[in-house]
Each structure stands twice: as C-alpha cells, then as structure tokens.
C-alpha cells in the first residue's frame, strides 16, 4: 500500500508533502516514515496517510466565470486606496 508522508519542520508550521513510501501495513509504514523522514532531526512531526484515504479533486468547472467569488479575487485594500484617491483624502493614519 502506498502511504503519503507529510512533514512538519517546526512546531506551529503547516505540514507539507514530503514524499511517499510503499509498505505492507501501518507498522511498516511507521518505521519506514521515521527512518526516511524523521530520524535526523529534520521533522517535528509526520502525518502518514494511506493514499487511498486522500480525496483528491483535480477538476473544476468555472461555468459562471464569477471569479469575484474567490476568496483571493477581491482586494478591499486596493478598492479603498482607489476610492481615497478619487476623494482626494489620505488614509486615516497619514492625516
């Protein structure tokens, strides 16, 4: 079974994908994960996940093309800056 390994480099940091390994069961996966990704002080913690447990979504239909619904699609800061420029006033802290 293929396991995907995620590695946290330091406490508080997000886990990042480190690689994968092939192991016959969870005990082997644990030992190999420690051996390959953890025993040289390079990791604070590991997530060892059977690949089949991962729900992968890689196909997206943007049928309405409403990209302003995206969380990164609308910068309030930029809009405010433009509005202030039109109104001829500086940001509050600059007054």
């Amino acid at each position, binding site marked *: 079974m293929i396991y995907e390994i995620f590695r946290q480099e330091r406490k508080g940091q997000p886990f990042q994908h480190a690689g994968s*390994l*092939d*192991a*016959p*069961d969870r*005990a*082997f996966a*644990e*030992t*190999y994960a*420690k*051996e*390959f990704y953890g*025993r040289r002080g390079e990791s604070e913690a590991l997530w060892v996940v059977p690949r089949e447990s991962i729900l992968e979504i890689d196909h997206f239909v943007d049928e309405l093309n409403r990209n302003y619904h995206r969380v990164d699609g609308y910068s309030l800061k930029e809009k405010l800056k433009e509005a202030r420029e039109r109104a001829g006033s500086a940001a509050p802290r600059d007054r």
Partner: protein
Amino acid sequence: MSERARQLLEIADDELILGWRDSEWTGIAPFLEEDVAFSSIAQNEIGHARALYELAARELGATADELAFDRAPGEYRCSPLVELRLLDWEKTIARHYLYEEADAARLERLKQSNDPEVAGLAAKIDREETYHRLHAQMWFDRLKDEPRFTAALDELRPLLDADRGEHGPELAELWDEMTIVRRSQPAGTTW
C-alpha cells in the same frame, strides 16, 4: 590489554562484521523500502564500530583503521552469530532480532559504566539503536507465526552464547573481501 579495551573491541567487532553482513542486502532486499531501511541500519552499525574502535585505539596507541582491518581473522572477537553469511531473508531478520535484543541489554550495562567516555558513547549509540529495535520488532511481529522464521530463531539463538574466540571459515572469507583494498596499498598509504 585492559578489560575496557577488550570489551570495546568485542562490541566494535560485532558491529563492524554485522554491518558488513547486513550491507550485503543492499540492492537485493525483498523490496525497495526495506532495502533503504536495512542499508541505513548496516551503515549505522559500521559507524558505531568506528566510534568504538576510536575509543579503544586511543588507549591502545593505534588507529581505528588498524584495529578494524589489520588484525588477523583469528584475532577478531565478534560473536559467531554475526559472521555467518546468511542468504535467506528470514534468517537475516532472525539474526537482526536476536542481535538487537542482546545489544540492547549490553548497551544498558555500558550506559551505567563508571567510565564517562564509555557511558557517553553507549548512550549515543543507543539513540540510533532505538530505530533498529523498532525495525526488528516490526519484522518480528509480522513473522512470529511463520515456521521458517521461528526455525531460524531456534537455529541461531544458541550462537549468542558461543565462544568469541572460535570462528568459522566464513569470517576469514569476509575478512579477505573486507580488507582487500587496504591490503592492496603499501602500508602507511593515506587517502
């Protein structure tokens, strides 16, 4: 030779010879992940041997390389368990399990040593051996009901108590291979 040097050489010889034997699986272990893990264990054992030889060498006025490679096969103090050339994986794992168990008890004793150098080195080695034991235990748990594996354990276990002064022909053959590069160079060659 002091009792301390004798003991250090005994353990160093065990680790060097076992490291060599385990490294014979590099590239041909049953599957790739195990190949990487077992090769890493083999390399650790040789690293432990180096540290132990260095400690003994300071006391004996020699170098680690001289102790590792320049003695005659009959002078090695390794256990007959580690010198065997095992071609079956289940026997290799049985030896690995038996050795790690015995080595754990030995390291526990050495960590209590009054000699701070010996106790310190034992503690350092034991930190790596933790992984070896985890690996040995994982294989033991998986194979413990396999008759081929339990037969291998029964066959090899008596060798743990065998005389360290008695070696079979397989150690001489291993020594021949292990020292071939060193012997091919004029004495005193440095790299």
